[in-house]
């Protein structure tokens, strides 16, 4: 489903280009879950941004459902994100001016894929029933992250890209959120690519890879 071939990405510095990713080859099958581990600054988030079509590589190809992202213009990449991908960020990035229910259904409505039954189900599974009319600032950190996960899953994406989804939570809350995330991933038969630096978070996933100095190595959770 997702295929990265010889992908490289660099950033300009006064000392010349700094390669954060170099010769990355990666494959993710439908329904599969993969943890991407690495130190801070190892290029994990950059790889996630490239996979989401938020950024473009200097070299190499990224295919999603056999379509090369390099062949898509910005609106087409946005369309792909809207319909096929779900994104979960460490900082949640909820819309502070929208109530819980509107945040939850935001991407689904953007993709014109709103399904009231699925929305109800998500609300219940995420433990947000009864909180629909609250605003994000009125929720706890765990509730906010659960809402962010729900927003990403609401349009039933093929692939969920999660960037340190529990980085802002304490251990207990993180465990609860992760358990829920895995259950919902299975329910919706969605693939998962999760960036984390925590072995505990990576452990339940099908596979684990480690980024080291811009290159991928087989990893152990």
């Amino acid at each position, binding site marked *: 489903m997702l295929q990265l071939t010889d992908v490289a990405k660099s950033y300009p510095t006064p000392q010349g280009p700094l390669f954060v990713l170099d010769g990355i080859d990666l494959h993710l099958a439908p329904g599969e879950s993969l943890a991407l581990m690495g130190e801070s600054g190892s290029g994990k988030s950059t790889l996630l*941004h490239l996979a*989401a079509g*938020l*950024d473009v590589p200097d070299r190499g190809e990224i295919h999603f459902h056999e379509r090369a992202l390099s062949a898509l213009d*910005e*609106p087409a990449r*946005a*369309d*792909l*994100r*809207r*319909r096929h*991908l779900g*994104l979960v*960020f460490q900082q949640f*990035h*909820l*819309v*502070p*001016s*929208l*109530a819980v*229910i*509107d945040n939850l259904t*935001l*991407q689904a*409505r*953007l*993709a*014109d894929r*709103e*399904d*009231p039954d699925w*929305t*109800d189900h998500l609300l219940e599974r995420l433990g947000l029933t009864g909180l*629909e*009319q609250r*605003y994000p600032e009125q929720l706890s950190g765990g509730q906010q992250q659960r809402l962010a996960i729900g*927003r990403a899953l609401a349009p039933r994406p093929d692939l969920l890209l999660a960037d340190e989804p529990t980085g802002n939570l304490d251990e207990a809350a993180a465990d609860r959120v992760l358990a829920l995330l895995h259950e919902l991933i299975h329910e919706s038969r969605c693939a998962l690519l999760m960036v984390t630096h925590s072995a505990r978070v990576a452990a339940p996933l099908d596979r684990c890879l480690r980024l080291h100095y811009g290159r991928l190595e087989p990893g152990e959770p």
Partner: protein
Amino acid sequence: MSGRRPARRAGVVGVTLATLLSHYRRHPGQLAMLLLGLWVAGALWSSVQAINATARDSYARAEALFETRLDRIERRDGTPLSPATYAALRRDGMAVSPLVAGELTLAGSAAGEAPLRLLGIDPLTLPGTSPLARRTGDAASLRDWLLPPHRLRAAPDVADAARRDPRLPPVEVDPGLPPATLVTDIGVAQRLLGLAGPTRLVIAPEAPAELPDALMRIPARQLASPGQLADSFHLNLTAMGLLALVVGLFIVHAALGLALEQRLGLLRTLRALGVPGRTLVVALGLELLTLGLVGAGLGILGGVLLARLLLPDVAASLASLYDSHVGTRLALPWHFWLGGVAIILGGLASAGAGLLWRVARLDVLALGHAQAWRARLGGLLRRQAWAGGALIMLAAGLGGWLWLTGDRQLVAGFVMVTAALLGVTLWLPAWLAGSWRLAARLGRRRALWAWALADLQLQLPRLQLPMMALLLALATNLGVSSMVGGFRLTFLDWLDQRLLADLYLHPEAERHDALQAWLADQPEVATLLPARHAEATLLDAAAQSAAPVALFGIRPAAVLRAHWPLRLPAAERDAAWQALAAGEVFVNEQLANRYRRRPGDTLTLRGADGRRHRLSIAAIYPDYGNPRPEVVMPVARLTRVFAAPPGSLGVVLRDAPGSRRQRLDALVTRLAARFGPATAESAIDQQALKADATRVFERTFAITRALDALTLGVAALALLTTLLAQAGTRRAQLAPLWALGVSRRRLVGVQCLQLTGTALGTALLALPLGLALAWALVAVINVAAFGWRLPLHLFPLQLLVTLGLAVLVAGLAALLPAWRLWRMPPRQLLQEFAAT
């Protein structure tokens, strides 16, 4: 937006727009600030446009009236025409038509209400080119017009009042008539006005007429009421309206910038969730359009209400300054409404286009980072400072050119003023940032001081726009106040110089000489100052044109020579008076400026009898408030050469013990006994004249002062709304300081000092700008617009007032946010601290 069933299908743009707009639901203050900015900008602009549109409508109706399309025939001595004269002219084959014009006070009018203008016409002889003649052209209406009970046509604004007057014939509303005008059959008009014959005769401009010597023909083009000067007055109003619009748009720009900066995270999230950049720009554009339409509606409505309030003063100004009659009811054409919406939407687009452009260009990954946003803003500030510098150079260059060439072109003057205002405004952020850096260097050992100045640098992107608005408002306030204050001083001084006589009399022509002889024998009278008026045509060989010019005859008595203002050094004045006595003339500044004449140049005048007179100019004199070019010569010469009819008599009393009032009353009592009450009633006390002139002056600048004050108020609002809108962010910045041990009292003090200090820095830049504006108004724009030049007066107190106003405006704006911070419970500050 909330609700779970059924599924909503609003499309990407719809959902994006609804999500963007939801920001205002959580931040209603920002929405209020945006709409307030649009409302005040639109209201001030629309009010001026409504006034101008009403004035144009009145001018158009006045021009359409037959009077301004027909030549006029009057007696040279100013006495009324007799029916016999009219009959004699008709017998000689001249196509003249009689006309009665006078003022009529309607029955039931309130005290002090202005009388209406009543015209009586003879439709049978009125030249067919007149629009009025066409209206009475069909047989039925002509019969109604000529036979009792006759008909009366009334302008729409006075039709209802006319219907209530039992003396008047049945009333028909005529939208084509100028305001406050009634037209009826000549016989009816004579009866209503108590006249025995026509007041004047009219004739088609192309009709030939061999007039006897006692009569003169005044061409139609000399009678047109709204001239170039009235146009200039409207141009000045438009400029003030434009300034208010710009200041209002600063609020809009500040609010939009703030709303966008606070939604950067949201924009990033939307992009990440799959909203294309172009869709985001379209949605933001739709948001602007929605806000613009609501703001335009509010603004135009406010403008119409404001115009209703201001129109009576403007109408009075135009009537007293230019003899142009403007209705006191608004007459707004369709293009006023459409133009209002267009200019407000255009202004909003200009304020929002830059922001949309930046959103479109920013990288999706950098979009949410305020740092990246601010880094780009830093570059923008530098470009702004360069552009500002270039505009200041342009203004200085234009100023130098106008100064050196002595050319007073209105457009060049406005371009210079606009370039200077805009240039200094664009330069303001660089000036403030530089001042803060210098202040930080001086006080770097004091931690709170250093923090406060560093914090101000961070606030600059948000503070710059309201400070720009404040700069414009302060500079305009200083410039306009200096101009009006200087004008008032000069005008009052000039009145003292021109109104030398204690009493002015306007006797009937047949009693003029007898009255003059009687007054000369009275013991109270020291000097008599007779004056006469006549009309001539100025032949301008250079421009190959002819234009009407007023002739004014004076008696150059010692008292008049000592006080009459002349634009000459004191040492040259005696020589100028001797030259006047020897056959030369004085001309007013309006004539000198319009026809580029200087002392030593010559004028060629054609009198009413057709003879040409070549006259040398001895001196130029100021003549404030007079829109017409004027030539002054001794009254004896004016009577002899230009057949001027008898005019007024000025009486200067001797210095004597006792009250001036009592001596004046004694003289008027004896005068009434000798010449009858009518002659005595024509006497006008000098003090009453001065009071009247001063009242006209004050009214003339009423609208200028009103718009000036409103602009300053708008700037204060801009500052207040910006502070309120960013109060939440400010608390998050202040909370860590509080946590570090700075008391709330000190924090409030620091905040107020930051703001008043910034306002003071802005005012320091406003001072030279305001003075430059005052110079431009006095030396360039007034000369071009009104025809006279004023000396530039500087008022040190006014400079202090400007500084004080800046501090006051900033202090008032800071008060509410400071009070809120003061009242904030520590628990909330703790939350802000935890959030940071």
